[in-house]
């Protein structure tokens, strides 16, 4: 092994560290959850404070609980209760879908935020 090889290894390691910094900083911080019923946004709340919410689904009330930055469907009326069995979700990539109630709970990362709101 020559000196140039060692320099190469060290420089690749440094490149790895340099590359990892912007990725760490750009990691999306999930803060808000959006509840959609029949493709319409009905509720938007912060995940930072623990609270309970309720929306009107197709088959009745869907109650949603926020706890420690994660969200779950606490109680709902549907044949199989898939969405309440799913439990707490804190990732932007996993929505909670309750098809019988036509309700979708989705966490929005900072990156996906709206640019401009036109009314």
């Amino acid at each position, binding site marked *: 092994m*020559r000196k140039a090889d060692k320099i*190469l290894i060290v420089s690749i390691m440094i490149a790895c560290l340099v590359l990892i910094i912007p990725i760490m900083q750009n990691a999306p911080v999930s803060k808000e959850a959006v509840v959609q019923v029949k493709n319409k946004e009905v509720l938007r709340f912060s995940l930072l404070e623990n609270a309970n919410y309720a929306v009107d689904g197709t088959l009745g009330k869907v109650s949603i609980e926020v706890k420690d930055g994660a969200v779950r469907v606490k109680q709902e009326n549907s044949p199989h209760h898939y969405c309440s069995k799913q439990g707490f979700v804190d990732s932007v990539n996993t929505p909670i879908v309750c098809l019988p109630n036509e309700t979708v709970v989705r966490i929005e990362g900072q990156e996906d935020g709206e640019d401009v709101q036109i009314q």
Partner: protein
Amino acid sequence: MNTKKGVILAFLIALGIVFQLIESFFPIVMVVPGYKIGIANIVSLFALYAYSPKDMVIVTTGRIFLASLLQGTLFSIAFLLSVSGGLLSMFAMILAYRSKIFSIYGVSILGACFHNVGQVLAITYIYQQYFMQLFLPILLALSIVSGLCIALLTRQILLRMKGKLGLWKTSI
């Protein structure tokens, strides 16, 4: 190219295919998806040092095409990733070999690194998503390890084969 060399290159391609197939049977499942040591690169590196860059290109492209033909992934996404990584790593290895700055270790590590870079570029182009770039630093760090392993093995093979296939001028 005489007949003897042609036959040896064909044997190298066959060996590379076997290595690649065996490795695909036992994927080293780690935290990082898509990480492989790339034992088949031994063959490419051997061809580069025992013969010439031109012979490495023959061996590597032959191995990529035939192995994917045997695996049934010809012209699929896995094949495109293999080709893009292979081409870029060949390019880097030839440049590093020609520059005569690096020993076999440096050449191998550069090849492994650029294989990963090529694959990430291809994934980004195909899927138009940037999520694989999150793995690039980790893949690069791991490619140092795999590059060193491959270089170590190839160096031993070259030292043991010295004088049997004809001499090579470049110091390992």
